[in-house]
């Protein structure tokens, strides 16, 4: 199998091609796994994430663009300015497949340009363009201009990845955007592209994706599609989108509300998928080649929250900007989502950060912030009043954060730094600096382990323990009962999802399937003879490799949760009176035992078992 990387040297505006040896792919597959390996080899320890020495890996995987099932995604890896350890993010839309059609399986962005630049890649031909006229512009406008310049008006042909003003101005919670509304959101990697002054990449081409054994490929992918469609219930995702979770998680008392001080939101229904579908939905939309089509296309016709036809909002965005700030108005959330996308923010981190600001504002008013900090906050806020549930203040804040005006300059640094600066560090709900997503581990206890041990920080996509604690997949568990079988499932999902992110396919597949389903497709595409066990071991190898990056940096490998979740019991809902402490304390020792880790670090024998001897020096 051939895997072609394009190295873009932005310092010199030069491009060069490189082939990845097959032996490396067999070990790390592609996408997230390959990115982690290259990053650990190539990014020097201890560097400033904004220095030209940092690199951004934009990678597809062996099955991307083959058209089998949800294979329209790509993965981004680099050193995160938000967490200071390895960061990565995944996005759908069309960019992944079109990058491959354009002639490359991945791009490595290196060095830094003096002037804003954008790059076009068309059928293997790379061109650097000045981007002065695009700098400072929103994502939608940027894409429109580039499409004009490339004479490619149809949004079905070619694809664009870009950063918004948030990334340009080095906001640590900026998202890499593609196809206007799709985000590789987490860990602030857009700010690294901002530091390199790379505004956008356009890809287009007609290269055919090689499939070694076409017959077997058809057979194997049909098996997966059958499984997905059989397992799928009532087309929930296409009908209601991800936001169908709002009512479910709320009824379990795990919908974090008012900056994680409550577990239920009284206006949950008004921000749910059911409500969105009934009032504002125009159609649904899918990533390239996807049959599920979970994405929402919505619009608000008139009024203060008028929003043009656009994609979103998803469950996570609705929660972060809605329940967590107590904004219970769907129109406002559609608008905020649009703004966040256009300016290029990670909506999960954004919602958490604004919730912190609302809490700080409340504390300043009731005298529980240090006096001089309260005064400074007052001055920086100027004409903004970030009281709970104030959607208009939120909208103004997004702009100020993107361009770093007044309080926006501080909030653009993310929840942790904002809370620390104003003397209230425990107001920020994060793991390793990355703001947590929409599930309270006090009510869904496997998420305590899942968050604490997530390599990229507070994240629901390393192990989606909600699937068994709430949704009953693959087996039902009681979310409030501590059970070591759940530890095994968390570890399994972490390894299995590493495989999914490295093949680079959509995780929505993953509930109906397991790793044994994918090895056949991978072998058909590549001509390999990998076993299902070997594939899962590759996932485990990747998980350990990512952890090694943190160990090498000397921080970010301690597995714990924010103080609020460990010490403050939930005051409401089914999990009333509970913290996440007991679950985490009981789960961690068994987790380390089955991982072969000690205190958050892999043991030497674990690295040897996984064929990671070359990294033993890090321990």
């Amino acid at each position, binding site marked *: 199998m051939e895997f072609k990387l394009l190295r873009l040297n932005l310092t010199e505006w030069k491009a060069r091609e490189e082939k990845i040896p097959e032996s490396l792919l067999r070990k790390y597959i592609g996408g997230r796994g390959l990115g982690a390996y290259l990053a650990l080899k190539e990014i020097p320890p201890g560097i400033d994430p904004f220095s030209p020495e940092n690199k951004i890996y934009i990678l597809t995987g062996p099955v991307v663009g083959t058209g089998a099932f949800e294979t329209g995604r790509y993965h981004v890896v680099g050193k995160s300015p938000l967490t200071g350890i390895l960061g990565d993010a995944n996005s759908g839309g069309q960019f992944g497949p079109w990058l491959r059609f354009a002639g490359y399986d991945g791009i490595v962005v290196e060095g830094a340009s003096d002037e804003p630049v954008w790059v076009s890649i068309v059928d293997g031909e790379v061109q650097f363009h000045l981007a002065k006229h695009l700098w400072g512009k929103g994502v939608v406008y940027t894409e429109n201009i580039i499409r004009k310049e490339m004479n490619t008006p149809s949004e079905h042909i070619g694809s664009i990845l870009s950063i918004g003003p948030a990334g340009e101005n080095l906001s640590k919670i900026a998202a890499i955007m593609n196809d206007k509304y799709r985000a590789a959101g987490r860990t602030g990697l857009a700010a690294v592209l901002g530091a390199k002054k790379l505004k956008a990449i356009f890809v287009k081409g007609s290269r055919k994706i090689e499939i070694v054994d076409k017959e077997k490929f058809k057979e194997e992918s049909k098996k997966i599609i059958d499984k997905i469609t059989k397992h799928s*219930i009532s087309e929930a995702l296409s009908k209601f989108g991800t936001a169908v979770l709002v*009512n479910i998680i709320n009824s379990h008392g795990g919908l974090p509300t008012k900056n994680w001080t409550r577990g239920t939101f009284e206006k949950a229904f008004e921000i749910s998928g059911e*409500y969105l579908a009934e009032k504002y939905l125009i159609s649904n939309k899918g990533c390239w080649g996807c049959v599920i089509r979970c994405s929402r296309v919505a619009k608000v016709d008139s009024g203060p929250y008028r929003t043009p036809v656009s994609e979103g909002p998803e469950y996570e965005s609705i929660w972060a900007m809605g329940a967590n700030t107590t904004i219970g108005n769907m129109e406002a959330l559609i608008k905020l989502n649009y703004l966040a996308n256009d300016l290029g923010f990670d909506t999960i981190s954004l919602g958490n950060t604004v919730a912190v600001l609302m809490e700080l504002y409340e504390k300043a008013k009731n005298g529980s912030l240090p006096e001089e900090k309260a005064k400074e906050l007052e001055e920086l806020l100027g004409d903004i009043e970030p009281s709970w549930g104030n959607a208009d203040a939120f909208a103004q804040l997004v702009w100020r954060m993107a361009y770093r005006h007044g309080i926006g300059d501080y909030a653009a640094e993310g929840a942790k730094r904002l809370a620390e600066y104003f003397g209230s560090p425990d107001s920020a709900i994060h793991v390793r600096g990355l703001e947590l997503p929409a599930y309270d581990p006090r009510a869904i206890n496997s998420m305590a382990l899942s968050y604490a041990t997530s390599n990229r920080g507070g994240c629901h996509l390393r192990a989606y323990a909600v699937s068994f604690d709430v949704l009953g997949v693959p087996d039902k568990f009681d979310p409030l009962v501590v059970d070591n079988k759940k530890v095994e499932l968390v570890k399994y999902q972490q390894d299995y999802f590493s495989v999914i992110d490295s093949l680079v396919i959509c995780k929505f597949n993953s509930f109906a399937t397991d790793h044994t389903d994918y090895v056949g497709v991978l072998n058909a595409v590549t001509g390999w003879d990998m076993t299902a066990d070997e594939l899962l071991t590759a996932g485990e190898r990747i998980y350990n490799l990512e952890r090694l990056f943190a160990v090498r940096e000397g921080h970010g490998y301690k597995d714990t949760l924010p103080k609020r979740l460990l010490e403050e019991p939930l005051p409401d809902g089914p999990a009333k009176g509970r913290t996440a402490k007991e679950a985490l304390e009981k789960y961690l020792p068994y987790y380390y035992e089955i991982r072969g880790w000690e205190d958050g670090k892999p043991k030497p024998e674990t690295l040897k078992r996984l064929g990671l001897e070359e990294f033993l020096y890090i321990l």
Partner: protein
Amino acid sequence: MPKVKVAFIQEFYQLAGKHQIEIELPGDEATVRDVLEKIPEAVRERLFDEKGEIRYPAEVAVNGRRIDFLDGLDTKVKDGDLILVSPRALFVI
């Protein structure tokens, strides 16, 4: 009279035509089964199989705990409880 709330998710919401309804309990000793007797017929048809058991893949939860981990349809309910009727929401992150 004690009352409970019943919330409907996804297709059950469409069948019920409402997100939430309030139901008066027949007495202090009421069970989930008693409550579900009073929900809209269209929902009942989809929710129960011929034997009167919850049909796979639906889920019923009382205050966020699935009745499988409580006493099934015989789980006791009390004033103010929230009963959730939902399909298993797959493919959702």
